[in-house]
């Protein structure tokens, strides 16, 4: 049951995630590269959503159309999720951001992505009815 408490809790978690990412770029360095993590995790559920809409499960005569594009969406989603972890690690290894900034931005990005995923999970259940 997705009540009001769930929405409030999810928005708190989302705000904490954004706070961690913004603090990681504002505290530790002169640049704002960790904000790319937010863009990555906002983009991450999009290919899955778009490609699952593009798949046409009802024309069962066409055998080759259906699940290829769904797999493309899943592939791109997996790419974006791992990219959200790999991007701060890469920046930290190259010395562009510092190690604590990397840790804070990874944790904040995972909080943001978890919020998005649980939000869609809660509200897909109510749409089904």
């Amino acid at each position: 049951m997705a009540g009001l408490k769930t929405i409030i809790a999810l928005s708190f978690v989302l705000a904490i995630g954004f706070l961690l990412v913004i603090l990681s770029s504002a505290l530790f360095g002169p640049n704002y590269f960790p904000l790319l993590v937010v863009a990555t995790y906002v983009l991450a559920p999009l290919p899955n959503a778009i490609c699952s809409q593009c798949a046409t499960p009802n024309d069962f005569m066409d055998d080759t159309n259906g699940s290829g594009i769904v797999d493309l969406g899943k592939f791109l989603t997996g790419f974006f999720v791992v990219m959200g972890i790999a991007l701060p690690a890469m920046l930290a290894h190259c010395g562009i951001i510092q190690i604590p900034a990397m840790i804070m931005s990874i944790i904040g990005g995972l909080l943001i992505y978890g919020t998005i995923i649980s939000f869609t999970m809660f509200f897909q259940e109510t749409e089904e009815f």
Partner: protein
Amino acid sequence: MSHPFRIRLPALPSQAVLRSTGVYISGGLFATAFYTFLDASIFSRVANGSSNVHITILDWLPLICSILGMLIINFIDKTHLSNDDSFSYSGGSGVMLKAKIVLFMGFALMAGGLAGSLAVLVLKYLVPGHPWPTLWLGVAGAVANGLVMASSSVLWVSQMGEGEYRYDLSL
């Protein structure tokens, strides 16, 4: 349904779940490969100031070959490989042969990419005897090509048991 054992083994997840998990893992492996090599090339320009050996187009070529091979392999419809199209509603005779030729080109590109990255690692970094932070540029190329190959094989394996799943959906 009664079980003879006191402890039930956890049931394996269904084939659709396994399939989508495999596709997600494949995308993650591909992202790891790409960002490993991007890390090496940024590290070469930004952080590795002590040496004058840098990532050039020579280092990018094996990775480009591997990614092209992965694209070619996964664009092929796998149903053409298993049946010998005796009922020819999708292209007549020789589709299986064409699919196998294109698939061979894809595998050759991928293996060539891996071998090329190893050759670059040996000839450009190991033989001149560069120390470790420079040696990472070559190691990252080899690791990235291996990860692209792993990603492609995970995608291939998870797409193999595809027919029964779609059959279940369409009925």
